[in-house]
C-alpha cells in the first residue's frame, strides 16, 4: 500500500512546489507552499517518522507559514490592502490548493484507518528516540543550531533596522 500512497503525496508535493515558484502573488505562493509542506509530512508519515510528520505540520505548515502570512499582511497596510485581500479570496485562487489538500487529507485518513502493520523495511522512530538522540550524542549539534539562529537574528536585526532608517530619511526629504 505504501507505493501508490507515496507517489500521490510526492506528486502533490512536486506540483505544489512548482506552483509556488511560478506564482507572481506572494500570498498565492504561500498557499501552495503550505500544501507542499503538508504533502512532505504525509511522505514522512509513510516512512515511519510520525513525529517528524507532526513537527512538519506544526512547525512549518503551522507556525512559520502563519508568521510569514502575518508579515506579508502587516506590510500591506492602507486602503488598497482591503481590496487586495478581497481579490485574494476569489474561488479561482483557493480552489486548487484546497483540492490538493483534500486529496492529502483523504490519503492520510485512509492510511490511519487502514490499521496495517508497517512494511518490513520501515522502522518507526518514536519521539522518545528523537529526543534521546538530540540530547545525547548530538547535543553539540543542537547547541550549534542555537548559534545558527543567533547569527540569523543578529543579521536580520541589523539589516532590518538600517532599512527603517533609510525609509525615514526618504520621508524627511519628501517633506522638504
Amino acid at each position: 500500500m505504501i507505493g501508490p500512497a507515496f507517489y500521490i503525496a510526492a506528486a502533490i508535493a512536486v506540483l505544489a512546489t512548482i506552483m509556488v515558484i511560478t506564482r507572481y502573488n506572494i500570498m498565492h505562493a504561500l498557499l501552495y507552499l503550505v500544501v507542499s509542506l503538508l504533502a512532505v509530512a504525509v511522505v514522512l508519515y509513510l516512512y515511519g517518522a510520525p513525529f517528524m510528520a507532526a513537527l512538519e505540520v506544526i512547525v512549518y505548515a503551522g507556525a512559520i507559514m502563519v508568521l510569514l502570512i502575518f508579515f506579508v499582511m502587516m506590510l500591506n497596510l492602507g486602503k488598497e490592502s482591503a481590496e487586495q485581500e478581497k481579490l485574494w479570496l476569489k474561488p479561482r485562487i483557493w480552489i486548487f490548493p484546497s483540492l490538493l489538500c483534500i486529496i492529502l487529507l483523504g490519503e492520510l485518513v485512509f492510511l490511519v484507518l487502514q490499521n496495517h502493520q508497517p512494511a518490513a523495511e520501515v522502522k518507526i522512530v518514536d519521539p522518545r528516540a528523537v529526543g534521546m538522540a538530540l540530547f545525547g550524542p548530538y547535543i553539540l549539534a543542537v547547541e550549534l543550531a542555537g548559534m545558527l539562529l543567533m547569527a540569523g537574528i543578529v543579521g536580520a536585526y541589523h539589516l532590518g533596522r538600517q532599512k527603517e532608517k533609510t525609509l525615514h530619511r526618504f520621508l524627511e526629504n519628501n517633506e522638504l
Partner: protein
Amino acid sequence: MSFVDFLSLGPLITLSAAGVATMLMVAAWRNHRIIYSCTLIAFIMAMMAVIPAIKYIPHTYPPLLVIDEFSLFNTGLILVAGFIILLLSFNYFEEREERKEEYYILLILATIGALVLVVSRHFMALFLGLEILSISLYGLIAYLRARERSDEAGIKYLMLAALSSAFLLFGMALVYAFTGHMDFPGIGAALRQAGYLPVSVMAGFGLMLIGVGFKLGIVPFHMWAPDIYEGAPLPVAAFIATISKGAILVLLIRFYQDIHGNDYPMLWWMVAIIAVASMFAGNWLALTQQNIKRILAYSSIAHMGYILVAFLSGVQTGLEALAFYLVAYFITSIGAFGVVIVMSSSLQDAETIADYKGLFWRYPWVATVFTAMLLSLAGIPLTAGFIGKFYVVMAGVNGHQWFLLFMLVINSVIGLYYYIRLVAVMFAVPANGEQTTVVPALPIAGNITLVILTILLIGLGVYPTAMMQLIQQMMRILV
C-alpha cells in the same frame, strides 16, 4: 561531556561564550570601543585555549567532531587570521557606520562556523558549520547598507549560498542512502566494503562538490566572487577570501582522505578539471580588470586552483604543500586587503587602479608593503608565496602530475602580468598637478598590522623550515 571534551573544544566554547556575551553587552549598552576590545580579548583567549587542547590530541567527540593535529593547526590559523582581520576592522567601521557593534557579533559567529567546519567529521556538523558561516556572512556582506552595492552583494550571496546548500544536502542524502553512514570514516569503510563506487554515490559526491565548490569560489561556481568582493566591506572580503575558503578546504581534505578518494579515479578527474578551469578562468579574467577588489577576487579563484593541484598530487608532500600554501595565502591575502583598507578614505574605498598611481612617491611604506604582497601572490622568491608555489610544484613532481604542473606554470606566467602591472602603476611618476581622488585614512593600528604581516611574509619566505617541520609532523597522521 567530559572534562577532556571541554578542554579539546576550548577554542570553540570560548568563542561561543564570547558571542553570547557580546550580544548581551550590545543589548545593554552600545559602545564600539568596548565591544571591540572584548572581541579582541575573546580571540586571544580562544587562541590560548588551543594550547591545553594539544595535550589530548587526537581526541574524538563521537559522532560529530574530531580534534587532531590537523584540525588544531587550522583552528589556530583561523583564529590568528580572524584576530588580524579584527585589528584591521576597527578604524574601517568607526568611520563608516552608525551601528557598528553587530559586526563583531557576526564576525565571532562566522569564525565559530569556520572552526566547526575544521573539526567536523560528520555530515551534520559539516552542514551546521557551513550554515553558521553563510548566515553570518549574509549579514556581514550587506553590513554597510548606505553603500550602493552592498545590498546587491548580500542578496546575491544569499541566493547562491541557499542554492548551493540545497545541492549539498541532496548530495549528502544520496551518499547516506547508499552507505547508511553520515560520519566520514563510516562512509569510507562502507565504500571499501562495497568495493566500487555506485552511480548514486558518485552523483552524491558530485552534488556535494557543487555545494563545497561554491564556497571555495572555484570554476564553474565562481560567478559570485567578484561582485561580492566588490560590494562587501573590505575586512569582510578579506574574511571570505581567507577564513571561509580555508575552512572549507580543510574540510574537503578531511573528507577526501576519510573516504579514500584516491581509490576512485572518477573523483580525481572531477577535481582535476575544476582545478585547471579555475586557474585559467581566474587568471584570464583578472587580466582586464581595473578594480583592485575584482583583481583580488579573480586571483583568489586562481589560487584555489593552485591549491587543488597540490591536493590532487596524491602524495604526502601534496598535503604538506597544501597546508603551507594555505598559510602563505592567508598572510598574503589579508595583507593585500589590509593595504586597500588602510588606503581607503571614509568616503570611498581605494578600489580603482588609478587610486594607486604613483603611490610609491606619496606613501613609500604602504607601496612597499603592497609590492611585497603582490609579489608573494605572483610567487616571486624571498616571499612566502614563492615557497608555497615551490612546495606545490615539488608535490606535483613527486606525484608525477606533469599535465597539472604544466598548467600551473603557464598560469603563473599569466598571473605575473597583472600583479606586476599593479606594481608598475605604483612606481609610475605622477604627472604634475594630477590630483588623487581618495585621501587615505592610514590608521596606526592598521599600519602596525601591515608591518607584522610583511615581516611574517618575508620571514616565511626566507626561513620556512620551522613552519615546514610543524606541517610535516601534523600531516603524518592524515595519510
